């Protein structure tokens, strides 16, 4: 009484595509592509009793960048295009007026900054300045620091700053990679200060 072997019925997979499409469309609708990227900045804390630091900083160690309501740049009391900003900021930071910075290749001009540790860039914007302009100016100034750090890293270790930073991130404490990163930051500390907002029209 051997029966004929029954064939296993094939599962109909036609609806599988529909299900997958449904899921796909759900994801298309509920998700976004944009990745969170941006300029990281640190705001100064509000201090009740303000220390009179302003008096201790020499005038020549401050690089004053002012943006007016018409999105025009005034750098060290001179009108400037944004395309020139990075170059002149780099010149200012790297000036090395007192010769204490071993890594700097600046002009040592007596009217510009003493050394990168003392050089402060101050940005002030008007209430009418557009956010676009403000971001581009901040970006250019950060780029100036980035370029100087890149140069230093290339000269010393033949790698760019981002590589040094990545290496330091994964490395253990008191390793060579961490020290390198620290050294670069010590030579060119990012000193971007923002003036207290003024409500001038």
């Amino acid at each position, binding site marked *: 009484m051997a029966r004929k072997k029954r064939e296993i019925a094939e599962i109909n997979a036609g609806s599988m595509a529909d299900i*997958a499409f449904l899921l796909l469309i759900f994801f298309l609708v509920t998700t976004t592509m944009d990745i969170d990227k*941006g300029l990281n900045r640190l705001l100064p804390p509000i201090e009740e009793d303000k220390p009179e630091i302003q008096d201790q900083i020499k005038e020549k160690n401050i690089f004053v960048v002012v943006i007016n309501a018409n999105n025009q740049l005034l750098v060290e009391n001179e009108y400037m295009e944004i395309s020139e900003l990075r170059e002149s900021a780099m010149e200012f930071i790297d000036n090395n007026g007192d010769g204490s910075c071993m890594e700097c290749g600046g002009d040592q001009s007596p009217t510009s900054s003493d050394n990168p540790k003392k050089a402060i860039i101050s940005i002030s914007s008007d209430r009418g300045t557009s956010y676009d302009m403000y971001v581009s100016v901040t970006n250019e100034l950060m780029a100036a620091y980035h370029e100087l750090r890149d140069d230093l890293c290339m000269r010393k270790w033949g790698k760019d700053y981002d590589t040094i930073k990545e290496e330091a991130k994964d490395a253990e404490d008191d390793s060579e990679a961490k020290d390198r990163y620290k050294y670069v930051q010590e030579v060119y500390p990012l000193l971007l200060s923002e003036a207290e907002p003024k409500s001038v029209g």
Partner: protein
Amino acid sequence: MSHIKKEKARETPAVSTASLPDIVFMLLFFFMVATTMREVELKVTVGKPSATEIQKLERKDLVCYVYVGAPKTDYQAKFGTEPRVQLDDQIAAVSEVGFFVTQVRSDIAEAEQSKMTVSIKADGNVKMGLISDIKQELRQVNALLINYSTQPVVDAEKMFESNM
């Protein structure tokens, strides 16, 4: 009989759609990996400015978002056309930013509260007056780590250089 059978076999067989689910699943997985969940429904238009010195926000759970921009057309009757601040799903006043940020911060583990970043997603056309007000609010509540959300610049010249 055999004659009829032969006739039937000549018909073109149905196209197999068995690989269709696979293809769709592949697309699905791509989208699942490449995108992120939309957190809030944007009521303001945010056309981010672009910049080159951008850093990625590493810890998503430690980020608090503040959206700034002109209300979208649907909401203009209610909120006007001037740039407004959006917190979570609602359009709010600038003075509420501080409270909002402290609330978000209280949900974060205490050890990591100091690492919280406030991401300002503002439209390029917003005036700095509003942004400064927000920054003052943030300083008041001691939320000092901020991130100006921007888009990367597609720099043709740089790309060319790196390919050399």
